[in-house]
């Protein structure tokens, strides 16, 4: 059961809307840059799961730690990351957060309490639990949140990390972005339990199974889990059901995806869905929508310009920074 959404303030609703638009527009720009041959590495986008990732990122407080994974550009943005930093990162520029050393949105920002991922699925779960436990030791009321796909949820670190968190009552929230495919593999070849949230019971923690295309429901539920964690109630597992609306990555045409399923989910487009609700609630009209979108479009335009004109890293940097002083 999702938590009640009437706790979500109008301000948050509008923020969610802006962020959903920003996420989609930024990702569209990244794909365009990729198609132009300007981005070299893999490009994975969040189309279809944006409501989940954006709402999760926004539900965190400033002091909380975010561990995003490969489709979580929206969470980066929601936690305060700039479009510019994201583009610099994809473009591998010398002034990006990783100075060109890492790819895609593998990037950390300690000023925003964002810790980037490694590609190995599930590997960040124990690390995020470690941050949560350390913050508890340091007597700070800080929550840590990490994502995993329904495919990645079958890796050993999911089990070890979540059990560890439960035993140590770590202030930790794990969000399963169940978008029904893992690369080409449909969910039923990844697991055969009814719901992945049922796994929570095996760790003695609360599990939630919710509609991951409904930004408001996701926000309310994750917010509750975060505050439970903050209040010493330990970790939660939240499964957000959605659908990957594009290929696995920019080079994949998703020929293997169930087309009926796609159609069904086109109607549940997280962005349009929220727009509809907010229009109905009188929080948005055409004019406001245009203003929001124009502002964001302009930001992306400017960021793209700056990013493309930013310097490449110097070659010899490759040899530096393996070890800390």
């Amino acid at each position, binding site marked *: 059961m999702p938590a009640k959404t009437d706790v979500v303030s109008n301000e948050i609703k509008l923020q969610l809307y802006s962020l959903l638009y920003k996420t989609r527009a930024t990702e569209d720009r990244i794909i365009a840059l990729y198609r132009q041959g300007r981005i*070299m*590495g*893999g490009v994975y986008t969040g189309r279809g799961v944006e409501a989940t990732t954006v709402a999760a990122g926004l539900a965190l407080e400033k002091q909380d730690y975010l561990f995003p994974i490969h489709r979580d550009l929206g969470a980066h943005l929601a936690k305060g990351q700039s479009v510019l930093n994201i583009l610099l990162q994809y473009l*591998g*520029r*010398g002034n990006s957060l*990783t100075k*060109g*050393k*890492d*790819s*895609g949105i*593998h990037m950390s920002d300690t000023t925003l309490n964002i810790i980037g991922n*490694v*590609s*190995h*699925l599930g*590997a960040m779960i124990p690390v995020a639990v470690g941050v949560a436990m350390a913050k508890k030791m340091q007597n700070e009321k800080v929550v840590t949140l990490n994502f995993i796909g329904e*495919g*990645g949820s*079958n*890796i*050993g*670190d999911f089990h070890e990390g979540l059990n560890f968190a439960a035993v140590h009552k770590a202030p930790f929230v794990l969000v399963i972005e169940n978008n029904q495919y*893992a*690369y*080409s*593999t449909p969910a039923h*070849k*990844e*697991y055969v339990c009814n719901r992945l949230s049922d796994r929570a019971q095996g760790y003695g923690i609360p599990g939630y199974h919710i509609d991951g295309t409904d930004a408001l429901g996701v926000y309310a539920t994750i917010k509750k889990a975060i505050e439970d964690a903050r209040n010493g109630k330990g970790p939660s597992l939240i499964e957000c059901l959605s659908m990957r609306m594009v290929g696995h990555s920019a080079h994949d045409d998703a020929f*293997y995806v169930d087309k009926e399923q796609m159609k069904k989910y086109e109607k549940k487009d997280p962005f349009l869905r929220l727009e509809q609700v907010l229009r109905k609630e009188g929080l948005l009209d055409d004019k406001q929508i245009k203003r929001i979108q124009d502002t964001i479009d302009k930001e992306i335009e400017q960021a793209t310009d700056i990013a493309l004109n930013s310097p*490449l*890293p*110097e*070659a*010899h*940097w*490759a*040899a530096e920074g*393996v070890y800390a002083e």
Partner: protein
Amino acid sequence: MAEITYLQAITEALREEMQRDEKVFLLGEDIGIYGGAFKVTKGLYEEFGQARVMDTPISESAIIGVAVGAALVGMRPVAEMQFADFITVGFSQLVTNAATMHYRYGIPVPIVVRAPSGGGIHGGAFHSKNPEAWFVHQPGLKVVAPSTPADAKGLLKAAIRDNNPVLYFENKFLYRRIKEKLPEGDDVVVPIGKARLVKPGRHVSLITYGSMVHACLQAAEILNEQDQLDVEILDLRTLQPLDKEAVLSTVERTSRVVIVHEANLTAGIGAEVAALISDNGFEMLDAPIKRVAALDTPTPYAPVLEEYFMPNPEKIIVAVRQVIHF
């Protein structure tokens, strides 16, 4: 004679071995309908069905463990790691279960783990790794790393027919970049443990494997033109067991050695080869043994950084000139 790529050679080996022996089956992520992240298994699902081309959950440890189990009772599983990098999460199954089972229990473990490895594709730190040295240090495993379509095919056939766990590192940079004419439907098995003399030469030996065979060929050409050097190139092909005889005989011929690999320098295969020579080939040497390898860093993402990081013909040429002018 059809010209096939390195990638097609792998597919052909899989297909032919599956046709030859019904105990051979494949397992891995997205290898079924999708044909694998690199399309190596494309068409095999259609030909052999889902029981023999098995999509698995994302669970590298289980993939390898299940392969080991199936091998114990007579099957010949070929597991695919989507990228060699992810073998780290199945590492323990390989070094603990697969590698030691025959020594302890006398039960053979005929598994093959295919691992697409190597950089140059801007994949960053986690899609570019060359982890072969870890496995060469674990007794009980065999390790091969083909550099040509012919070897890709012949070594995979040998790996599948071998009664031991074999790690098969296929270089993904080479997948579609090199082609070779192979007799159609040939059944040439390249024996595990035998190096290949790519090019005889008199002045210096380049000992290498995998993608760097091609960098060495380029370097040799330039060195021939610019320095009038006749460079010998030995492709190790198998890293465990190493072909010591071939290594020592190239040293005997040229007395000067540069070892080249794409993996990180320190404690890589180059170290073992250098150690072998410095013990058994000491008297034959006329110069220090040089190694050319990737920097001792994770693989960086930005092309300019990755180029600086990777070994290449220029770096090989520098090292050759050092041992020549020693």
